């Protein structure tokens, strides 16, 4: 049997060039979904294959990679992807947002503001913001081409008529550079303002759906809303129990079966660096720690 041999960062160079061309096109047309010939990756579709392909295509030997899932570096899927690149590309990895040149993320944008030169790679499950209003790709591509976004505004309006609020709390649609309506991936809408005018390059990869899109640095990103119902980010009304942060997105942790709750930063790096800097919340340890097996 011929033993399989893999290239730097897994993908072959031809594939990387194809993906880089798609990325360049995506950067040239902010918010536009560029079709690309997504490959089967050694992790399942829906588990970050789009983000992994984008990362594999932009990674160089000197890059420092950070991978987060739900804001945290130590969730299982983040560990798995970080180890994948440590193994296939041999790049340095970090958990510190400020140290990373490439940050791959699922569902969050780091709390620490990103800088020029950094790249944030989002894993995207459903790239099409209009998909749940119109299931057909042929239709939604036409709607984007004509900037025909009335259906989305009607949906948001119907939410208000029914609930009194826009009932979208994550994957909240944005308009990029005044042209394309874009799905920010299922990040909580708390993170939407961070996309606007960011000094970092933001790349979005959807593997199963075969789409790449981008927000170049310093691009206007507006969350869709109405004058009388302006966009409002949501966070739990509490400080972080570990670091006392009042401005970070919080995970709600159920501590017992009697209604006990605690709220801690979803961004573990942010929380830990605040604790190191001496900030304290009402608790001094997470309620659960990984048990060490032999």
């Amino acid at each position, binding site marked *: 049997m011929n033993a399989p041999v893999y290239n730097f960062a897994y993908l072959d160079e031809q594939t990387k060039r194809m993906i880089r061309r798609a990325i360049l096109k995506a950067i040239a047309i902010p918010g536009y979904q560029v079709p690309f*010939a997504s490959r*089967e*990756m050694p992790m399942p*579709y829906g588990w970050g294959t789009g983000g992994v392909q984008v990362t594999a295509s932009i990674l160089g030997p000197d890059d420092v990679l950070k991978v987060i899932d*739900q804001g945290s570096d130590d969730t299982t*899927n983040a560990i798995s992807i970080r180890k994948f690149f440590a193994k296939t590309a041999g790049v340095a990895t970090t958990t510190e947002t400020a140290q990373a040149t490439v940050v791959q993320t699922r569902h969050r944008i780091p709390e620490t503001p990103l800088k020029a030169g950094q790249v944030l790679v989002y894993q995207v499950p459903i790239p099409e913001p209009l998909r749940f209003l119109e299931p057909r790709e042929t239709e939604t591509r036409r709607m984007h081409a004509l900037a025909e976004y009335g259906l989305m505004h009607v949906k948001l309006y119907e939410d208000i008529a029914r609930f009194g609020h826009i009932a979208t709390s994550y994957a909240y649609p944005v308009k990029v550079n005044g042209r394309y309506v874009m799905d920010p991936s299922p990040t909580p809408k708390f993170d939407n303002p961070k996309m606007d005018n960011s000094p970092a390059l933001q790349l979005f990869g959807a593997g199963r759906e075969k789409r790449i899109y981008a927000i170049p640095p310093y691009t206007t990103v507006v969350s869709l809303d109405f004058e009388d119902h302006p966009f409002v980010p949501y966070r739990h009304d509490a400080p972080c129990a570990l670091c006392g942060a009042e401005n970070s997105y919080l995970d709600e942790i159920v501590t017992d079966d009697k209604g006990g709750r605690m709220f801690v930063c979803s961004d573990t790096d942010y929380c830990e660096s605040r604790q190191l800097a001496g900030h304290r919340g009402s608790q001094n340890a997470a309620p*659960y720690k990984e048990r060490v097996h032999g």
Partner: protein
Amino acid sequence: MYVAVKGGERAIENAHRLLAHERRGERSVPELALEQIAQQLGLAVDRVMTEGSLYDRELAALAIKQARGDMIEAIFLMRAFRATLPRFGSSEPVDTGAMQIHRRISSTFKDIPGGQILGPTFDYTHRLLDAQLADGFVPEEPATAEAAAPATPRVTDFLGRDGLIERSPGAEPDAAVGDLTREPLSFPAERDLRLQNLARGDEGFLLALGYSSQRGYGRNHPFAGEIRFGEVEVEFFAEDAGFAVPLGSIALTECQMVNQFKGSATEAPCFTRGYGLAFGQSERKAMSMALVDRALRARELGEEITAAVQDEEFVMSHSDNVQATGFVEHLKLPHYVDFQSELGLLRKLRKEFADANDVEPLQEAAE
């Protein structure tokens, strides 16, 4: 539970170690050899090669072993390896008319040039569990006879000579072959890409769709014109040599469905075709593929599109089991930041409802 989601590096390592242990099973039981899988679970190997889009019996056997017999997982392993292989060209079209036949049947004619050849088939077996097979069964040597006439022309060609069936599209040697693994799919898709999608598609999904067309959802009256299984030569045009060189032979199953006719004021009515092709002996797959291929030609043939099986965007977007299983199973990944956001919104809506209707909000949990 929280432990299961965060801080999982050691947990992952241990889980994989446990998986390897479970895969091996009781260590006093002899380990499966790849050759045993390739030989004795040959139809599983055929399916993994077909839907994995890679003809390599040994790697398919390895994938089945590694996947503990989970076929979709094995297909996934093949695909992930295939994706990394360089593509240096396309073979010449294979000539299934020149197939070295192992099995060949037609349900449209009682007898045909080259004969009806049953070959190795489950057809006409009585499905009674056979206790003899449990251990140490040595089957009889197969019956043999002189090879029949070497020529086994395609059944649809007999019909074609009389113009009773639409012509197969002519070969276009200079046209590039579509490849949805190299170019992103867009709709409407042409038949080459549809067939590629169906060839890679999940057997169960295509079976159900083909079945639905037989039951009246997009009905098109099929007959199994011919099903043939055997070996064909694969040739590659070598630029250096200036001629096509043989690369080897592969086993294929081909199904040609003969379907209801069409006609118009200017065209005489004739039968139409549905086509299925799969690696190895994969009859159910090839037949299902042929049914779905025919149904998907509704647009081209000017038929009314009323059923799922005729809807190429629906069929092609959902036929790939590696894509489907990935997305279904990704629900196992943590979603708590989104869920927290939804929870926050729901609590707010419930509170507003309670305020508006002047009722006490329900307590969330016992004090």
